[in-house]
């Protein structure tokens, strides 16, 4: 930690982890409901659990990104944050909005469109909150001593994410148009601007962890985000095949979304090559694991499993089945959850001064959560493929098919338990780090040097 204000990141990370834990609880409720045990129906019917599960996901990832940015930007701009107070105000208001939304979902208060369920009045608070963040970061960058590519890409990613939230707030009477613009938020986030955020965090971590020259890393960062937009913008078409939009989207969406995995492949290769080029071994082995892990798993979850159902001929059959849920889990985990874990794991020793960077608890947390998530993906995959075959190909009744695939949800629950054990170990490790310390300001290099490392 070079600047005192970087400390705010800690509170963003801690809040993100709390929301993640809640998200997992609601995931279990839905898993059991799919298995036939919907005993919670009166308290939290499936649609409530679902809205909570996915909204908490988005909110904790954003909280993680905000934390990451508050940690990275002072270092990239080489000055303290513009205002620490604004950062805390932003965190507290964000949590209030998040909690209000989650409580509201239990009382049938929502906007009722998948992933954008937050009720309209709260949307305005979200926008105001993000503007506050953009202002704080923007001022820090403007007043900063240097502009780095990593800093700019990160800032542009967050800025465009805020901008793209707006099309999701327009009302349409036509379901097709409604859906058309809903994807401007959902797709252009995860397969567009969020990749900028991920790429920038990845580049930052690689610069810090491998000691490879910044110019080389940032050059490839441009190539990756270039590939992202080249394929991802028109790739939006893979959501326009079957919603009442013109037929040409089948061709355009098919061709361009089929190229989207290239950006993720580039990300994976980028991580692996830079890792191999690193001359020195950074002592924070676990942060390195999460970093390379994220680069690789994002390719598997988003690139490979995305490609598996993105061609219109395949998507005709899998559209809106559990196959989509399979892809949704591993892609969000690999690309966005893991990169947040990576930056947290990197930052914690530097903020707290505790050298828990190669301990058993942290290593198990990494392996168990990843093993669990891969197994969950497998359970969704088997259930999804069986559903497509029985319901779509053979024309069996929906509920009859759901009965057939109930056993795979036992598999899901078991895998999710493994995953949750991993996450619990991460939480314990996080707790063991303790709070960030002011004495650590400017001491990061010494901490690393004590373990024989000298980096940027």
């Amino acid at each position, binding site marked *: 930690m070079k600047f005192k204000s970087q400390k705010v990141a800690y509170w963003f990370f801690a809040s993100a982890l709390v929301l993640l834990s809640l998200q997992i609880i609601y995931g279990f409720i839905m898993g059991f409901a799919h298995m036939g045990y919907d005993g919670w129906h009166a308290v939290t019917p499936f649609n409530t659990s679902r809205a909570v599960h996915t909204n908490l996901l988005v909110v904790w990832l954003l909280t993680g990104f905000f934390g990451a940015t508050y940690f990275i930007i002072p270092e990239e701009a080489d000055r303290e944050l513009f205002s620490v107070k604004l950062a805390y105000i932003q965190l507290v208001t964000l949590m209030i909005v998040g909690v209000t939304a989650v409580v509201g979902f239990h009382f049938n208060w929502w906007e*009722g*469109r998948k992933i954008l369920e937050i009720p309209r009045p709260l949307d305005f608070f979200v926008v105001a909150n993000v503007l506050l963040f953009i202002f704080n970061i923007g001022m820090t960058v403007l007043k900063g001593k240097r502009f780095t590519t990593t800093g700019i890409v990160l800032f542009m990613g967050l800025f465009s994410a805020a901008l793209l939230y707006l099309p999701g707030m327009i009302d349409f*009477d036509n379901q*097709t148009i409604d859906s058309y613009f809903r994807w401007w938020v959902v797709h252009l986030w995860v397969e567009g601007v969020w990749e900028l955020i991920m790429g920038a965090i990845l580049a930052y971590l690689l610069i810090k962890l491998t000691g490879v020259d910044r110019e080389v890393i940032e050059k490839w960062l441009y190539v990756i*985000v270039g590939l992202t937009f080249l394929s991802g913008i028109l790739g939006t078409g893979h959501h326009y095949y079957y919603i009442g939009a013109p037929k040409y989207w089948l061709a355009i969406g098919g061709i361009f979304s089929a190229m989207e995995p290239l950006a993720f492949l580039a990300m994976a290769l980028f991580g692996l090559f830079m890792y191999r080029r690193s001359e020195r071994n950074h002592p924070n082995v676990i942060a390195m694991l999460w970093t390379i892990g994220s680069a690789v798993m994002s390719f598997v979850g988003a690139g490979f499993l995305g490609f598996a159902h993105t061609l219109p001929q395949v998507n005709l059959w899998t559209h809106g089945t559990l196959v989509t849920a399979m892809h949704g889990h591993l892609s969000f985990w690999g690309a966005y959850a893991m990169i947040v874990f990576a930056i947290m794991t990197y930052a914690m020793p530097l903020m707290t001064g505790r050298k828990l960077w190669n301990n058993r608890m942290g290593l198990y947390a990494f392996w168990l959560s990843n093993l669990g998530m891969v197994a969950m993906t497998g359970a969704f995959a088997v259930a999804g493929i069986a559903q497509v075959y029985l319901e*779509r190909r053979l024309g069996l009744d929906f509920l009859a098919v759901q009965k057939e695939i109930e056993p795979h949800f036992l598999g899901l629950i078991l895998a999710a338990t493994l995953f949750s054990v991993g996450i619990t170990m991460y939480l314990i490790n996080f707790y063991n780090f303790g709070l960030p310390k002011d004495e650590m300001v400017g001491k990061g290099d010494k901490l690393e040097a004590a373990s024989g490392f000298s980096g940027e």
Partner: protein
Amino acid sequence: MLSKSQARLFFLIGTVGFSLLFLFLTVDTMRQVPKQTNQDQITEAVKRGKRIWEHNYCMGCHTIFGEGAYYAPELTKVIDRRGEAWIRVFLKDPQAMYPGQRKMTNYDFSEGQIDDLIAYFDWIGKVDLNGFPPKPVKRLVQAASSNSGSSFATTTVDQPAIYGQLCTACHSLQGSGGNVGPALDGVGNRFDEEYLGKWLKDPQAVIAGTAMPKLPLSDSDISALTAFLSGLK
């Protein structure tokens, strides 16, 4: 080798170029959508139906146009599949129509709200979705019934329309239909017309606590149904 400024140029040109192309295609799509979706048929009732759909977040269990959650049936073609009459009864008390199954919330809809939802589903079902949902490759049930052949005597009276609307969701005939209630093949051998008439009028009065709900049937519906059922021998 590629330099950093070349890489930046690649990023900028790619992003700006494809964003412009995307905006152009969006304008064209907005021009074509009204025709493809029969926008002129979006009546006030359809709009109200959509608002009820959103207000209750039905998409958090169901999919529509293949978008939503994977817990409850895809509803794009629900009017074709179940018919208006059945959906009316169902929405009044979802759990009565699927006893002991996965639960749908009971919203206590008024007749007017149900009208709006049906108008909405009706409009949804007529949108040209480029071939979604796909037709099953081979219907298992049809395959089964053609195997068993027509050696079983079927019926002497034509099937009344109301049967397809209200009964097939729970009962099967020749292997085709729902499985909430027993198969009705040969039901004419088991019960006489009088019993069937009483049963259809109010199942609860015949067998207290039965899982078959009381359905909104007129006297002429009942006589058509009993004639049909007693012919199933």
